[in-house]
Every structure is written in structure tokens, then in C-alpha cells.
């Protein structure tokens, strides 16, 4: 699903936190690609993502999904997960099964899908454990498995690998690349980790102080000559 933003502005209590009306007034997040949104803290990344995910409404501007405005059908094909996911007070298995249960899938289908995801994310051994007492990595993997369980067309991820161990990062990145490659899942990911952005993203959008400074391939961002981007890249090297 192509997602297009046009002249997006978001204001909170008279303070503009996102203003995409400059050179990059129109941003295109192409279907079946992995897009990264990068930039310093407070640059408007999460706000932009929440607007695209239909969780908050922009003060001005439009978001189009394959040229259409947001509707319930489109909304139900997208999902969103953060680095502090809200897991429900039930087992890991039940958390992952939740989106399938509300879609009234057959019991066998649910069991098969959840078992595959548990295996893929290497969390089968904790499937009966309460989701409220998981480590950071386990929570992230459970949240991501839950988000992927109903095969959405668009996946929004806000720093999904922040503060977790390298093995879990590897598992998560592999799962994302696999879904993108095999199912054509469109992924939009916020990350502070530039090397991760280079590993998995085919397109990067750089935000700073609510404005977009750059939106192109990862290779081209390295050649960019903007001082803020240079500073961000140099800090990521160390």
C-alpha cells in the first residue's frame, strides 16, 4: 500500500511539532518497501508515524493510502508497535492469538499461525508465561509476533529494537525482511540506529525540528551535505 503525505502540519497547544510544508511537502512511502524515519529526538518522527497510522489527526494536510483517504478497511490492514509495547495481561500465546481471535479465525488456523510465530521469534519456551513479566527483548518479540499474526499490509514500528540484545535484534530484523520479501509487507520504521537503517531500509526520511531535510535512498543520505545530517551520521559512527 502506497502512503502519501501532503502538507502535513501538527500543532499541540499552539506549538508546531511537525511542519512538512517545505521542499518535502509531499512524501511517498512506497508499497512493499522498508522505509526508515530517522532524526534527532523531538524531530517529529513519532508524530508523523502516528498520523500515517491513523492514530492522531493532523492539524492540516492529508494522508492518502493508495490515493484514498483513511477508512476503516484501510485502518484494519495496518498495525503499529512501539519500543514500549502494551502487552495484555494474559499469556504470550494469548497475546499473539488476540488479533486472530477478534477476526474470528478457526481454532486450528490460530494455533498453527501462533505456533509458527512463536518458533520464528524463538519464544516458544515462554508461550505460557504471563506477558507482564517478560524482559525487554521478549516483550518486543511478542509484540511484533502479535502485530504480524494477522498479516497486515502495513507495519509501523517505533524503535522496535531500542534497548534489546543483539540476538533479539537479529531475530526481529530477519522477520521483518522475510515478511517484506515474501509477503510484500510495507514497513515504516523509526530508528536511531543508522547501521540498522542501512541494513534493512530501502528508503530513508530524515526529520529535524518537525521538518523533513531529506528523503531518498540510504546511499544518497551519505552523500548529503546538510550539517544536521552530517552531525547525526558522525554521532552514529561512534
Amino acid at each position, binding site marked *: 500500500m502506497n502512503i502519501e503525505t501532503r502538507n502535513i502540519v501538527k500543532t499541540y497547544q499552539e506549538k508546531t511539532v511537525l511542519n512538512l510544508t517545505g521542499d518535502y511537502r509531499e512524501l511517498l512511502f512506497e508499497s512493499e518497501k522498508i522505509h526508515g524515519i530517522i532524526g534527532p529526538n523531538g524531530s517529529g518522527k513519532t508524530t508523523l508515524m502516528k498520523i500515517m*497510522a491513523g*492514530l492522531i489527526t493532523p492539524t492540516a494536510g492529508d494522508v492518502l493510502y493508495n490515493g484514498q483517504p483513511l477508512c476503516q478497511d484501510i*485502518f*484494519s490492514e*495496518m*498495525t*503499529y*508497535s512501539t519500543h514500549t*509495547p*502494551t502487552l*495484555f*495481561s494474559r499469556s504470550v500465546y494469548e497475546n499473539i492469538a*488476540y*488479533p486472530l481471535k*477478534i*477476526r474470528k479465525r478457526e481454532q486450528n488456523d490460530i494455533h498453527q499461525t501462533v505456533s509458527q510465530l512463536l518458533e520464528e521469534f524463538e519464544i516458544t519456551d515462554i508461550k505460557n508465561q*504471563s506477558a*507482564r*513479566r517478560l524482559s525487554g527483548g521478549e516483550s518486543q518479540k511478542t509484540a511484533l509476533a*502479535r*502485530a504480524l499474526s*494477522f498479516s497486515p499490509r502495513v507495519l509501523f514500528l517505533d524503535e522496535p529494537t531500542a534497548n534489546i540484545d543483539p540476538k533479539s535484534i537479529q531475530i526481529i530484523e530477519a522477520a521483518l525482511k522475510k515478511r517484506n520479501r515474501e509477503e510484500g509487507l510495507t514497513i515504516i520504521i523509526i530508528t536511531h540506529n543508522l547501521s540498522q537503517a542501512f541494513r534493512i531500509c530501502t528508503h530513508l526520511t530524515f526529520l529535524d525540528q518537525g521538518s523533513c531535510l531529506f528523503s531518498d535512498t540510504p546511499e544518497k543520505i551519505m552523500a548529503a551535505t546538510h550539517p544536521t545530517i552530517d552531525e547525526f551520521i558522525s554521532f552514529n559512527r561512534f
Partner: protein
Amino acid sequence: MDYILNGFVEAFRLIFSFDPEIIQIVLLSLFVSFSSTLYGTLIGVPLGILLGINNFRGKKVVSRFLYTFMSFPPVIIGLFTALFLARSGPFGQLQLMYTPTAMIIAQTILVTPVIMGIVFNNASTSGYEVVQTGKTLGAQRWNILILLVLELKGVIMIALVTGFGRAISEVGAVMIVGGNIRGFTRVMTTFIAMNNNMGQYSVSIAMGLILMTISFITNSVLYHFIIGDHNEYRD
């Protein structure tokens, strides 16, 4: 000091004599307190969730009023209820004054803000996250409501226990609207207050022990679910 010890001895004798009047008072107390907690839950839980998860202009003012009502003195609530239910009051023709129904109404007014306030506070914080997560996973309005109730069930149980505790232990409101009529509106707290005034300490102690035992049993049963639930999430 002797009268206290004698009071306890007499209390146990009274408890195990299964006095019909004592049994009737205990049963009426339980009926009034459980009924008001039930009505308070039916009103307070949905309203608390609704106000908690929605952001609207004036939410802070609503929360301040709600927290003020949580600590409203029972005697004031009893007074206002009596003014409305008295023969010359707006609902005088219903002839509810000095009936168990009047006591239930007064206690419902007393416990509803308590239940609502606890649920509201938790729904405002964790409830919002649950709603957002449910939405992003494709949950419809009805699914979200069920999800929210299940996620907040521990909080709802705590609210229920607190509400019941406030109802069964209060004396001011039921004294005013019930009138402490023997065999009709006399409950444990009004019985204790009356016998204490009359210097019949043993009877007061006996009823006090029964009240504490009932509170302990009720809270234990309800907490069993809550603590069992919370222990599951504890490392």
C-alpha cells in the same frame, strides 16, 4: 478494664447464641451494603472507564469534582438524601424515608464516586494505552470494551472492595435516612452506635467483632481473585 474483658466474653456468648435479632441485623447490613456496591459498580465502572479513556475539554475539572465526592462525609450525603426523600421533599410521595431502600440510595450515592474515581484514575493512564493497542490490532468498539474490562479487572475488583468497605462501615447516612428502626432498618453500625450510647458495651463489642469478621471474609474472598491475579505478573 474488667468491663472490656467481660464485654468480649459476653460478645462471644452472644455470637454463638445465634440471636435472631442479631442475625436479622447482619443480614440487613449485608443486603444494604452489597446492593449499594452493586449499583455503585453498575454506575461507576462504565462511567469511570468512559471518562478515563476519552480526552475532552474540562476533564481536569471533572476529575477534581470526582475526587472531592470520593471523600464526601456520609452524614452530609445522608442529610441530602433525607431532604429529597422526606415527606415534604421532591420524592416524598414515594414514601421511601426510613426504609432499607432509602439506605441503599444513600449508600449508592456514597460508594459510586469511590468506585468511579478508582476506575477513572486507572482508565486515564493504562486504559488509554490498551484502547490504542486494541485499535491498532483491528479491534472493533465492542472488542475494545471487553478488552478494557478484562485488562482493568484487577482495578475494578479493588474499586469494588473499597466501595463495599465504605458502605458496610459507614453509620452517618444510614442513621439519618434509615432511622435505626428495630427489626426494620437497624444495621450493624447503627446498632453499635446505639448500644455504645446506652453503655451496653458487650453487645457493641459482639457486633463489632461480627462486623470485622464479615469485612475480613468479604475482603479475603475478593482479594483472593485480585492478589492471585497480580501475583501472576510478579517476578
